[in-house]
């Protein structure tokens, strides 16, 4: 039932999606006899063979604990882990490898900054500025430190399309503002925020900016030096890498001035019961045995992503976004939540005769994997006055066929409820 008038013609140099799909064996499965249409990449992307094999290959022949052994295996493992750091630096164009801190994911990265930079810089009566479209992981850590310090959390409002109001934002930048923490791309609405303007406005007042890039790296290229952001947080599992590892980028000067996050092994230079001398960057922030194989998987994911033209990835996802947006708007009673002019491959919607939870159950029986709920952004749901939305999100492996399967499954929802 795909309507050819909606399908924009493929462009020259486009992604070879059929070949990409072969890189993701999980997508070839069926459930209850239905082809899988995986449309939940904003929650987590699937993993290509290259990443899976890098991890199993590492455990098969190069694994040992790192940074402490004098034997060859430990050296091989350390090299592999540090190679991941080098690749990450290059991937986001940081100036220095020491600015790449490996953490569990975006959530830990934000908590790290809130608990170290925040604890040091935020005092009574100060303010932290976030936005109305943040994921809980970029709200709660700031709320916690604000509560502890007697500071206030200020929220940049958005319009009905799900775009931040920059005029209002400017008013929130005062002498008491200690940090601005903003999603680069909203996971609930798909909005791509004007982070360049956001950073510039904050910097004019000397205020540092943290970007939550959880949704970004799989879609847009990121150049932290060009953006001039002070901190950048992201998770490997949303960019075709493994779970359990993510990155906090921070400008070296800021990181050096910050106290350590957790205490333990690796983050120290010397320990006596009287005094501990902390290690240098990045190890100061990496207490304990890290997710070593995760680092290897992240490096493989970076290699994988880098093997495609970014323009082709963006064009592919925009094409699916346009196609899906038009097809969904044809469905009576369906309303999009999040219609920003600058949008990534995320479509949130509600249908007036069916609850998102029922929609997800019915779509699941049709092989369509989408997410229904508040997407860890309850304030966004409140802003749009909906209990929850259904969200379809795209990755490099999605096709027009996936979108058609979604649209056909939504017809089933209509048959049952309308």
């Amino acid at each position, binding site marked *: 039932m795909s309507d050819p008038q909606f399908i924009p013609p493929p462009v020259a140099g486009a992604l070879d999606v059929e070949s990409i799909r072969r890189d993701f064996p999980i997508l070839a499965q069926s459930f209850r006899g239905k082809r899988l249409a995986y449309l939940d990449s904003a929650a987590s992307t699937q993993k290509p063979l290259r990443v899976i094999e890098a991890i199993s290959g590492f455990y098969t022949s190069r694994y040992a604990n790192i940074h402490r052994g004098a034997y060859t295996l430990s050296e091989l493992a350390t090299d592999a882990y540090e190679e991941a750091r080098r690749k990450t630096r290059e991937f986001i164009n940081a100036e220095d490898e020491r600015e790449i801190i490996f953490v569990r994911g975006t959530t830990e990265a934000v908590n790290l900054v809130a608990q170290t930079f925040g604890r040091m810089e935020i005092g009574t009566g100060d303010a932290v500025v976030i936005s109305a479209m943040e994921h809980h992981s970029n709200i709660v850590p700031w709320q916690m430190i604000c509560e502890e310090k007697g500071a206030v959390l200020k929220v940049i409002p958005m319009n009905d399309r799900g775009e931040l109001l920059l005029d209002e934002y400017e008013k929130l930048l005062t002498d008491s503002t200690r940090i601005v923490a903003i999603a680069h791309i909203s996971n609930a609405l798909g909005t791509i925020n004007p982070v360049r303007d956001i950073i510039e406005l904050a910097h004019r007042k000397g205020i540092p900016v943290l970007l939550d890039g959880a949704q970004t790296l799989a879609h847009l290229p990121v150049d932290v030096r060009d953006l001039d952001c002070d901190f950048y947080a992201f998770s490997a599992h949303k960019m075709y890498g493994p779970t359990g590892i993510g990155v906090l980028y921070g400008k070296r000067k800021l990181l050096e001035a910050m106290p350590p996050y957790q205490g333990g092994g690796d983050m120290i230079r010397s320990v006596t019961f009287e005094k501990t001398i902390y290690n240098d960057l990045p190890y100061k922030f990496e207490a304990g045995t890290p997710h070593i194989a995760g680092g290897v998987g992240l490096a493989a994911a970076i290699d994988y992503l880098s093997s495609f033209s970014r323009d082709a990835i963006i064009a592919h996802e925009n094409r699916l976004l346009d196609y899906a947006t038009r097809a969904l708007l044809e469905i009576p009673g369906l309303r999009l939540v999040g219609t920003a002019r600058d949008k990534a491959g995320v479509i949130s919607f509600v249908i007036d005769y069916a609850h*998102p*939870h029922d929609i997800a159950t019915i779509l699941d029986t049709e092989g369509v994997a989408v997410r229904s709920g508040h997407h860890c952004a309850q304030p966004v*749901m409140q802003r749009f006055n909906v*209990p929850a939305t259904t969200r379809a999100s795209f990755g490099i492996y999605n096709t027009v066929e996936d979108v058609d399967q979604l649209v056909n499954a939504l017809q089933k929802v209509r048959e*049952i*409820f309308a």
Partner: protein
Amino acid sequence: MMDELRDLYQQVILDHQKAPRNFRKMENATASVEGYNPLCGDHYTIYLLVEDDVVRDVSFEGTGCAISKASASMMTAALKGKTRAEAESLFEKFHDLVTGKLEVEQAAGELGKLAVFAGVQEFPMRVKCAILPWHSMHSALEGDKTVVSTE
């Protein structure tokens, strides 16, 4: 359409979600409890009027998915006139039904119309939806909580 889906969204369930029974606030309730499922946003208040150990009236208001709303509606219809002990026993049987501990044939005898919720057995992720109103009712009967969460 898939049989499992048909079993889940039976006509009775669809009827109740479209036109829920006893869907109102109760001013003279002897107990009321809010039930909330933060994961999907189901949110109801269950009102009870219990006199001489008998549920004289029961009503609810709130929003949520078809399964939770139909479950609340059919629960209110089933509970009116029941003693406290009978209400608790229905709760237990309903719980066993949706979690697959009670056979469908057996359920029809013991639960009457409520047996239509047997379809939930095939959808473990929806058990919470079906049970939320019952949990809230149970707490209201015990009078020990004012907010119930299924998470």
